[in-house]
């Protein structure tokens, strides 16, 4: 859940259960969630040095160690680069409860981005999932969005 200190600009992630941790999302990450809520689309950021487009946007290109500021509007579609269907039970340290399994962990290359975005794929039958498939993000209804990664429910396979 995200705490609404100043929804216009800076968001903070907190845990579902009361735990003494919360994390600043920062300016770029907060803008990403604003864009998701307002326009249901992704936004990335381009490195002035290597020209790589990153999503989610962040302040610094790690390999170049260069500050980035050129935001790049993206769509809500991408391509599956790798995946795994998680079958084994485990405790989620963010909730203290069992993570619901099975679920499919996917590495998604969003259209127009050069890096990989990690999220969940809405299909757990291995025979129906293949690297290279086209995906589309499914969002929560706007009024239920919290400025959290789960504002994107999952990705549907579209072809």
């Amino acid at each position, binding site marked *: 859940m995200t705490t609404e200190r100043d929804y216009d600009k800076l968001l903070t*992630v907190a845990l579902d259960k009361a735990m003494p*941790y919360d*994390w600043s*999302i920062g300016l770029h*990450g907060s803008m990403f969630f604003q864009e998701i809520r307002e326009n249901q689309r992704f936004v990335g950021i381009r490195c002035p040095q290597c020209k790589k487009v*990153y999503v*989610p946007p962040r302040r610094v290109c*790690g*390999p170049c160690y260069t500050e980035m500021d050129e935001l790049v509007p993206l769509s809500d579609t991408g391509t599956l*680069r*790798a*995946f*795994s*269907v*998680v*079958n*084994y039970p*485990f*405790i*989620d*340290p*963010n909730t203290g409860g069992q*993570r619901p399994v099975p679920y499919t*962990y*996917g*590495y*998604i290359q969003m259209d127009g981005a050069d*890096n*990989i*975005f*990690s*999220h*969940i794929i809405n299909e757990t039958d*291995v025979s129906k999932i*293949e*690297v*290279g498939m086209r995906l589309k993000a499914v969002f929560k209804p706007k009024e239920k969005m919290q400025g959290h*990664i*789960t504002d994107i429910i999952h990705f549907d396979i579209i072809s």
Partner: protein
Amino acid sequence: MAQKVAIVGTGQTDHKSHRPDVTGQEMIREAVDRALEDCGITIRDIDAIVIGNMDHFESINYVDNWSIEGSGGFMKPIMKVTTGGTTGASVAIAAYYHVASGMFDRVLAIGWEKNSESDTTGAIITCSDPIWDRFSYSGAIPSLATEATAYMKQYGATQEDAARVAVRDRNNALNNPHAHLQRPITLEDVMSSPMLAHPIKLLDVCPRTDGACAVVFAADGEAQRLAKKPAWIHASAVRHTYSWFGDSTDYDAGLVSLARASQEAYKKAGITDPSRELDVAELYLPYTYAGIKWIEDLKFCGRGEGAKFVREGNTNMDGMIPVNPSGGVISTNCIGATALLRVAEASIQVMGKGGKRQLPKVNKALATGFGGCFWSDVMILGAERS
């Protein structure tokens, strides 16, 4: 120029899934005692200690402080180094730096883990970014599985190709009295084991082990006095990527950190044809697909040839480049000790102390560590003073 350094003694516990008979500190002491005994010194001869294990695992902080009665570090310079799965190799490399600097003559490196007392998956999940990655990340297995699915798609490798790696390592472990899993397995056993996270099955992946490892590093002059045949450090290299899981894997380029680290180490050690010039490799292969994929990054064979290279027996005990005579990570995985065990086992081969798992003639040996967000550490050891 740096001082020449050799490994002169190693010690490890008899690894088990659960050691309720000892505390963590007591388990560490077993490995330390064996390492000191191996080179005929006492804890008084040790000038400094480097120790490490996995952050968050046993829920014990300040491990360097807490473990003193096991490490023997009372009133000695002691440093904790922890870099995820690579911890054991990072501990070894830090101990090497200590001696190579000329400031210390005999340094003890220690890695340990009580996996039975750890929330392994939960602790590993907390290494992922809390805002973006943690909600979908589920620990080591699925992030490795993603790499495997991309590789299988690219090169047509099969689950059977990977299973051969488990069969090789698990059957090698039968020659290692310290190994955790000591039951022989077949290809059918691997293929019929339960699917954990597609395409990784139970027998494709490392166990959870309680165990510790200790290694004594000594300076030139002292090393020849302490060991009949010291294992000289010919090279070490470290390559760590950054924190975004997806970004750390460039599927066209392979495991970039391992390719870069091994390239640097080969260059330092004067190796141009690794599969022919190295006599043995103790590789941190936490799951079977790594055994066909990462040997390509190590340049044992070309891109997409890993499965064939293993299938043809090149990595067997009598092959061109025997991999994991100890049984490797798939047979024993006390995580903070795991990469240090690779260094220890490589040096055991150079020192000729491998017993039933000893190869006939080892002049050069490779040890690797893998962990974190697709990080790699590499060390090359040799019989020649270098």
